[in-house]
């Protein structure tokens, strides 16, 4: 600001009427605040949705045999027909930075039957001890208890239980085509019921201990269809999947495909993109409103300084120099506004991140894109939006200054100085 006199003049002009400057800067700062906080809330809602959608069961990264998807055939276990050392594989996956937990699973299409009712379901064999670190199905338990490892027990959705008319303690006949071609069938006891809010899971899935389901399907203990992996930051899933694919799959004799949730739940990515896209509309509206306020202020200040501009012009200043002072004033105002904006935004973001606004008393929970969403407005930290909103604010100030700057150059020096 010391290099050019125009900058100095512009900066000094802000101090002429500090009250007006502060009011204008505060207005812009609140615009900045609104944009960043609303984006933080939207990001928080999306992150919450992703966390719920992937956290209930799927995990944020999944490992399969390359041939497993999309058909999900019974035989396409990791490592082929021989299977793998599951414990070693889990240890290798969990050694990856950012991975919080990993759990092995087997899947099969089957029937569960009680009395005269038979329903086709997806049978999911899961390791009860390991699932705690990956999925939140246990938290969705509404009746009974979790299944015990090794026992022929099932957790089923509350909706499936209603269809079958069973309760914890009831017996179910479970039938599934086994890997040796026989018809696997056995009696299982309903251990507990869950209500996840995800229709497919609640009505068409039965979860049992992985060893019991493997026995039903005549699969050895080394044969699993999936390793579900939970990671700390959902948005790092693609990078962690890449890293796992390089590090874990390469040394072994078998290939493993690691997929991030962005691949197997593309609709969530679409929603996140839609959400961040719609934030630009908010930016546009907020700053379009601000632009007129700023233009008004600058128009007033330039009008008040007509004599000063006339004098400068009379002394030989070029119109370009005049334009530069006014624009410099606008930029300085913008910078002050941004600083003020950051100062009032950051504490609120932190506050609402740790103590979010809870609207669940007004709305209750709801399901969106197959994911349970709690109407709790926990803000995320929209780092990029800090810069975008700052840029938008500066552009707003500059655009608002264009017309006042033009008017300043049109001041007729002689008439103005003569008081005419």
């Amino acid at each position, binding site marked *: 600001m010391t290099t050019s006199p125009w900058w100095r003049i512009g900066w000094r002009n802000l101090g002429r009427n500090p009250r007006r400057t502060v009011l204008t800067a505060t207005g812009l700062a609140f615009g900045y605040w609104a944009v960043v906080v609303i984006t933080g809330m939207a990001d928080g809602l999306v992150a919450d949705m992703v966390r719920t959608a992937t956290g209930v069961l799927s995990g944020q990264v999944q490992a399969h045999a390359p041939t497993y998807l999309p058909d999900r055939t019974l*035989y396409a276990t990791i490592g082929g*027909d021989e299977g793998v050392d599951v414990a070693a594989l889990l240890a290798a996956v969990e050694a990856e930075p950012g991975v919080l937990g990993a759990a092995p699973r087997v899947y099969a299409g089957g*029937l569960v*039957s009680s009395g*005269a009712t*038979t*329903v*086709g379901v997806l049978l999911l064999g899961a390791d009860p001890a390991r699932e705690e670190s990956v999925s939140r199905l246990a938290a969705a338990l509404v009746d009974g208890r979790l299944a015990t490892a090794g026992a022929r027990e099932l957790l089923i959705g509350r909706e499936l239980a209603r269809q079958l008319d069973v309760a914890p303690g009831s017996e179910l*006949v479970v*039938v599934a*085509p086994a*890997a*040796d*071609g*026989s*018809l696997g*069938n*056995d*009696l299982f006891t309903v251990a507990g019921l869950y209500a996840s809010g995800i229709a497919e899971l609640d009505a068409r899935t039965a979860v049992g201990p992985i060893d019991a389901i493997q026995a039903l399907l005549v699969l050895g203990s080394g044969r699993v269809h999936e390793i579900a992996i939970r990671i700390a930051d959902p948005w790092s899933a693609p990078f962690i999947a890449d890293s796992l694919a390089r590090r874990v799959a390469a040394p072994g004799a078998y290939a493993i495909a690691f997929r991030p949730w962005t691949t197997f739940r593309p609709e969530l990515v679409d929603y996140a993109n839609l959400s961040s896209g719609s934030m630009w509309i908010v930016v546009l509206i907020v700053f379009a409103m601000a632009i007129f306020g700023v233009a008004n202020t600058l128009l007033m200040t330039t009008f008040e300084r007509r004599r000063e501009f006339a004098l400068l012009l009379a002394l030989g200043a070029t119109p370009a120099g005049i334009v530069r002072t006014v624009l410099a004033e606008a930029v300085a105002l913008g910078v002050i506004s941004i600083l003020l904006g950051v100062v009032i935004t950051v504490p609120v973001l932190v506050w609402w991140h740790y103590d979010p606004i809870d609207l669940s008393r007004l709305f209750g929970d709801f399901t969106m894109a197959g994911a349970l969403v709690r109407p709790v407005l926990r803000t995320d930290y929209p780092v990029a939006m800090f810069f975008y909103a700052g840029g938008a604010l500066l552009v707003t100030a500059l655009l608002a200054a264009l017309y006042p700057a033009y008017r300043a150059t049109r001041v007729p020096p002689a008439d103005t100085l003569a008081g005419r």
Partner: protein
Amino acid sequence: MRPLLACVLGLSLPISAAAQRTPREIVDNVDRVLRGNSSHGKITMEVVTAHWQRRMDLAVWSLGTDYALIRIAAPPKDAGTATLKAGTEIWNYLPRVDRVIKLPSSLMGQAWMGSHFTNDDLVKESRIIEDYDITIGFEGMRQGVPVWEFVLTPKPDAAVIWGRIEEQVRRDNMMPTWARYYDERGTLSRTITFTEFRTLGGRLVPTVMTVVPTDKPDERTVIRYRDLAFDIGLEPSFFSLRQLRSGTE
């Protein structure tokens, strides 16, 4: 249709007057004569898939087109497992858990006991005459043998899974030699071939029937009749859930 039961029940007597019949009558006749009024047979079913192969010994009873009971006699692991067809319903008995379960209609397309037949094949086989329009696609000599080749096209309102069925029948003995099943896009889905024609239960029947799914040419289900008896006087009451569970022959 024809698949499981028709093969199970044996096929046809030579019919000299066949030449004067309409395609519909011939196909109906091939279909009908095979099963007699009632029948009882012993069958070996061999299933070969990319992942396993197994042999099962089956005992089969049928009455008309509405009733059938199939019980697995071997291997020991599956022995006693039985399927009852009554009308459009299918029930399975599972001796290991001593329970009977009724198959939901949504699972009719599932494989029967791991074979390349579906439960639907059991239920729908009786409806071929009602569900399809039948025309002659070819009539003449194939490899020195006079044959008909019939084209079965589903009627507009028929609830069937096939887009078209083609079936070759030898004119001299009214024996089917193959049937080809096409999906709704007109792609060949599976082929059934009939071979080893012998007299069982007093009738000439193709004693071996082989099903090959087109998309997995290395897989197959082979049904081989070891024993067949026709018109043995079964009553509808025989095809009961109680009989399904009984495990006796």
